[in-house]
């Protein structure tokens, strides 16, 4: 064979690696060399179709043809079958972009996931990278913030606070030193969008943070990275190095005379450190304990300086808004939930992974059309949306659109976009107990409702399931009272949101109690 080498793509994403992607990549290289094939294996991020990982893609004239899930043992056969030319095989998925799972998505934030080499800034640039920063540098800080406000972007970390308003508060502070703090603690079980972005497209986050810095007048950014994400740490460090070398970070960002740099800090391994004020304490080297608000972090944040705290997804969405305009982004979504949402489907589901599309997809579409129902094949009984502190929805409510207001009306929330599926074997009393237990385990211990209440909740539920019928009503009423106290009295969302799973379980699944 002559000419350019064959280009193969194997995800380096840790989700893919956990099912053997590294071995596949290595064996593929060995096998190609053995066969004298000039192959270039690019380690990308993941497309987010985790049930198909390791998903190997081949560059063909018709596009990138995928094969998966590929096991190391499949490689000789696939090569024999002509995988490098995109030939047919049981594992052949066809053009990945046209795969039904991918085709119906609207990938804006995650547009480059699985496509580009996360360690290669040129690959990023050739896929529209840094157009957002260039656009931003032609605008005044106020104009940048206005674009973000106009786009309707709301925080994707959980609280869904309008990002533009937050930035504007920081912009208006007269302080000489301001910070951008990226919340990459991604503590919600069953969520992985932050990780996928950092591993698969780190420059998007870096670009987003740089734009944020220039918009509000911050010169230093920190990425507070979940301790369990060593691969993301390596990818980010490598990307930061390249960005500095190429002048996208440093004393003179792209010759603009503006300063911005980013440092990665490893988290403390506690769920509560994902709560923004606790994260700031931890970033300052202190015990990760929640701070009272006010003052808002935007006014007194890191080291008491005005600080933008945003989630990875929020920040990684900023470049596309600047590059393609607020209107473009705002046109996705519904109601007051504008743009796209990165839904992360997990639990007992056949096809788990990342679904990014405009707000408004119903739970049913997500669970059945994308997820294909449960992995066990049993009927779906419930989903928990928004992480461990999200509400449970019964199958009867699966018409609810996945957007902030509709969920709020159901006493539920979208949170960071995690959706966990349960089949009909789930015991909802157990799930309610688990919510209290999770809160008890993760409580920072600062405020009383959460510090003591969470453990009492566990104890009450233990007693409830063993107590005689007569006593149950009183215990249930007390659990409701406890939920009220935690919801209304807690200092932060950990204690404050624990009632979501508990109350929703009690309300929608009374038969389990």
């Amino acid at each position, binding site marked *: 064979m002559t000419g350019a080498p064959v280009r193969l793509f194997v995800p380096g994403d840790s989700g893919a690696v956990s099912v053997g992607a590294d071995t596949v990549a290595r064996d593929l290289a060995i096998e190609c060399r053995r066969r004298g094939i000039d192959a270039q294996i690019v380690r990308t991020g993941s497309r987010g179709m985790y049930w198909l990982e390791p998903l190997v893609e081949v560059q063909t004239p018709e596009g990138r043809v995928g094969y998966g899930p590929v096991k190391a043992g499949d490689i000789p056969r696939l090569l024999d079958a002509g995988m490098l030319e995109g030939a047919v095989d049981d594992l052949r998925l066809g053009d990945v972009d046209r795969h039904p799972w991918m085709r119906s998505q609207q990938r804006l934030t995650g547009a480059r996931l699985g496509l580009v080499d996360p360690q290669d800034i040129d690959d990023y640039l050739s896929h529209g990278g840094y157009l957002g920063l260039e656009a931003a540098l032609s605008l005044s800080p106020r104009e940048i913030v206005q674009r973000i406000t106009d786009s309707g972007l709301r925080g994707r970390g959980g609280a869904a606070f309008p990002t533009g308003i937050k930035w504007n508060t920081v912009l208006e502070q007269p302080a000489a030193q301001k910070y951008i703090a990226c919340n990459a603690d991604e503590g919600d079980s069953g969520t992985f969008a932050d990780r996928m972005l950092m591993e698969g497209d780190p420059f998007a986050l870096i670009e987003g943070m740089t734009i944020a810095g220039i918009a509000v007048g911050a010169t230093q950014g920190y990425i507070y990275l979940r301790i369990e994400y060593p691969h993301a740490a390596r990818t980010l460090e490598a990307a930061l190095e390249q960005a500095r070398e190429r002048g996208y970070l440093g004393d003179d960002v792209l010759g603009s005379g503006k300063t911005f740099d980013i440092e990665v800090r490893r988290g403390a391994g*506690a769920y*509560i450190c994902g709560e923004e004020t606790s994260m700031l304490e931890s970033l300052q080297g202190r*015990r990760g*304990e929640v701070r*009272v*608000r*006010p003052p808002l972090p935007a006014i007194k944040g890191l080291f008491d300086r005005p600080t933008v705290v945003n989630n990875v997804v929020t920040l990684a969405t900023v470049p596309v808004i600047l590059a393609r305009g607020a209107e473009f982004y705002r046109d996705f979504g519904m109601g007051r939930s504008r743009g796209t949402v990165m839904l992360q489907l997990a639990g007992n589901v056949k096809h788990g992974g990342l679904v990014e599309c405009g707000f408004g997809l119903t739970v049913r579409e997500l669970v059945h059309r994308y997820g294909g129902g449960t992995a066990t094949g049993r009927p779906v009984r419930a989903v928990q949306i928004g992480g461990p502190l999200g509400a449970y929805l019964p199958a009867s409510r699966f018409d609810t659109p996945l957007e902030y207001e509709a969920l709020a009306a159901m006493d539920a929330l979208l949170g960071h976009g995690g959706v966990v599926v349960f089949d009909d074997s789930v015991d909802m009393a157990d799930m309610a107990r688990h919510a209290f237990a999770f809160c*008890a*385990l*993760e*409580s*920072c*211990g*600062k*405020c*009383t*409702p*959460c*510090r*003591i*209440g*969470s*453990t*009492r909740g566990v*104890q*009450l539920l*233990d*007693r409830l399931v063993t107590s005689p019928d007569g006593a149950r009503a009183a215990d249930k009423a*007390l659990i409701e*009272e*406890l939920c*009220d*106290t935690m919801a*209304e*009295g*807690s*200092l932060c969302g950990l204690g404050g949101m624990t009632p979501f799973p508990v109350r929703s379980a009690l309300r929608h699944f009374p038969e389990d109690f």
Partner: protein
Amino acid sequence: MHAHDHHDLGTPAVKGEPVTLEIDGVSITVPAGTSVIRAAALAHRDIPRLCATDTLKSFGSCRLCLVHIEGRKGTPASCTTEVVPGMKVHTQSEQLERLRRNVLELYVSEHPMGSCPASAGCELESLAAQHGIRESRYAVGTTARAAHMPAAVDASNPYFVADDSLCIVCSRCVRACEDQQGTFALTIEGRGLESRVAASQRQPFFESECVSCGACVEACPTGALLEKSVIAVDQLPERSVRTTCAYCGVGCSLIAEVSADAVTRMVPDRAGRANQGHACVKGRFAYGYATHGDRVTRPLIRERITDEWREVSWDEAISHAAAEFKRIQAKYGRDSIGGITSSRCTNEETFLVQKLVRAAFGNNNVDTCARVCHSPTGYGLKHTLGESAGTQEFVSVQQADVIMVIGASPTEAHPVFASQMKRRLRAGAKLIVVDPRAIALVKSPHVAADYHLRLLPGTNVAVINALAHVVVTEGLTRDDYIADRCERESYEKWRAFISDPKNSPEAVETVTGVPAALVRGAARLYARGPNSAIYYGLGVTEHSQGTTMVMGIANLAMATGNLGREGVGVSPLRGQNNVQGSCDMGSFPHEFSGYRHVSDDATRGLFESMWKVQLGSEPGLRIPNMFEAALDGSFKGLYIQGEDFAQSDPNTAHVTAALSAMECIVIQDIFHNETAKFAHVFLPGSSFLEKDGTFTNAERRISRVRKVIEPLAGFADWQVTMRLSNALGYAMDYSHPSQIMDEIAALTPTFTGVSYEKLDRLGSIQWPCNDAAPQGTPTMHVDQFVRGKGKFHVTAYVPTRERTSAKYPLLLTTGRVLTQYNVGAQTRRTANLAWHSEDRLELHPHDAEARGIEHGDWVGVTSRAGDTVLRVEITDRVAPGVVYTTFHFPESGANLITTENSDWATNCPEYKVTAVQVVKVAQPRAWQRRRQEAAPAEPAVSPN
């Protein structure tokens, strides 16, 4: 817990524009920045709370203080919500009541109700009772805290107990230790329900960094941190008395809680302007000496000092003393006797002693122990600024941008002010330390000196001149200020002097040992301020150039415009509680109260007409002159109120010879002491708990001392002086110290407006208090200096005669530790001994190595004056060539080795520089061993 009579307002007071809001329909106006909880408390709508208290910033953790605010979502915490104009707050509703009850029930589910020794004062128990909660519905099975987190009760601290089973994890202790005390000894360890308070690295309190200030104990709402004295009485106090601490010059306002005529607890007064609700291990805990068995409660007399003491009646003792003084005066002349006032006694008592000397003895032979510490302050400040006192109020430090600490260790000697200073430093003020030793401030949690000018002892003046040289030659002077407020001629002269290159940092570098670059940096920092404040201590005054140094400090402050407003100034940190007061009260041989010279006819006339006697116009003898005269045989009798020369004066051998030469020494004190060994009459004194009066602290603040218990010996000190005067034939007739204060006010222009009635009303008053300043004067020299124009003085550096030599190659300097006070007469009779049971010599590792000395060895310390033996501590807190010790214990004999050198202007002894040699020895001197074994020294008394 806070004082029982304190109405806690929830969060500290703030300053701000008035804001009017409505709380439960009641309109109230408070400063902007006030919390809703405080506004409500001020409107007498107290909102339940457990994590908030008005000495600490709000924390928002208990969640009991939730309220409704019209137009706001949910139930915000009132402690963390600031008032807004027109805000409408509702503190009561069914929902709020339900929430509060639930939170209380959660607390109660882990708290052993009724079983804690502080139940009577426990905030949780009383809140629960208010809400009718006795049990918790959440107590499912065993939920007591002790059940899942067993922890031994920590009773390691001599004064308080920590019992985790009673802790409600409100963090008040942690925050008190951080914000109020600034020690950062406590943290919350663990998460969730496992959270608990830990001292340092989970150590017993006594072994942790804790300095036993007690702030955490007072902050604790439950019995989790509780005074042992409170546990012992186990009941609410019968009464509380507000008084003033008798230890250091901070003069903390304290509330003594009393049951069965015994003090059960001292609580800092949160309304105290000086201490702002804080105190230290001495004031808060070490009051037990007052009722110690060593107290002398019966008058004693003897013919010769070699005789045994004989207990006698008050009448006999007084008439004996009077007869002796009369006899001596008849034999040796009117000037052959004198009196010494005490910086430990009240203003009224001091005033009476000098009145006794001037009016009854008929001479001006009165002096005070302030001579041994701060007389250069009086002289130096009077001659530059016009008033012999510090210029600021303590809270002024909160406005300072640059703080310069010279020759003082505030964390040890003025701990409560040090805490205020540290708070300001944590908030960003810059710090310059000028001290031979790395005092704690140089590096402590969240505080670090920007410059440490580690000068050689004895070179203060060279350093202050070098600082001023930089200011002047680099054009950093405030010329407009100087032109406006200072004497032009004196400035020109000083300017010419100070600009001389021989005063440059580079020129004096080898003398002072301070790198020139550091001096330059510090000078620029100080000059640029914009608010720069100087605080100094005995390291400035106790030198042969003590007065020069004080003047040098004043020069620097004037040249940079750092006088006359908040945040700046020159503030001496007075050693003893009433040094300022005793100086103000006319304790010096040449001055009447208010620092007016005895030769001034008008002033003398005023006193003569009030006292109805003729007064001498010539200054009397100073203490050193008294000693010299005693050795000459012309001075034979001395009335000493509360002072121990033999221990605290330098060069003890000289002092004891002088004392031995006298025929009648009358000593009035609460304990036997070194000086009493030379006395013929011992009149039992009264402690500060036993009398009424006033003290004046380092900020010129006059505060009331109030009688808490009856005098153990039957009379307060002022009564004893009065009786002595009457016995001498000069009538004094006061039935209460307030009358003495009225006399002081009538005779002293700076005190005209002072009365007990006003003190009760205002809490305390900073003099001058008169028609021009009816509320007193927090900041001096505001529009102009007291003397009119500020006067610069040329301050040439003259090296001390005390120099190192081959024989005495090291420089000894002295200081204090936190837990002991002065010569230790009080603190050694308390559990404070646990922290500091002996004086040690600090020696740099290099010097130790060169001498083959190891940590803990006994070393002989020899100077030109004498020698003693101390145990050694090897540390780099001191520089090579410098050694350091404290002198709290008589057996240390630190003053056996200090020399007779003294300040040129005031005779203040040069305690701070002595050339010594240090060698390893096997054991202490024989006399020291005897002293140690015999301690506490109680001399033989024959039963009549």
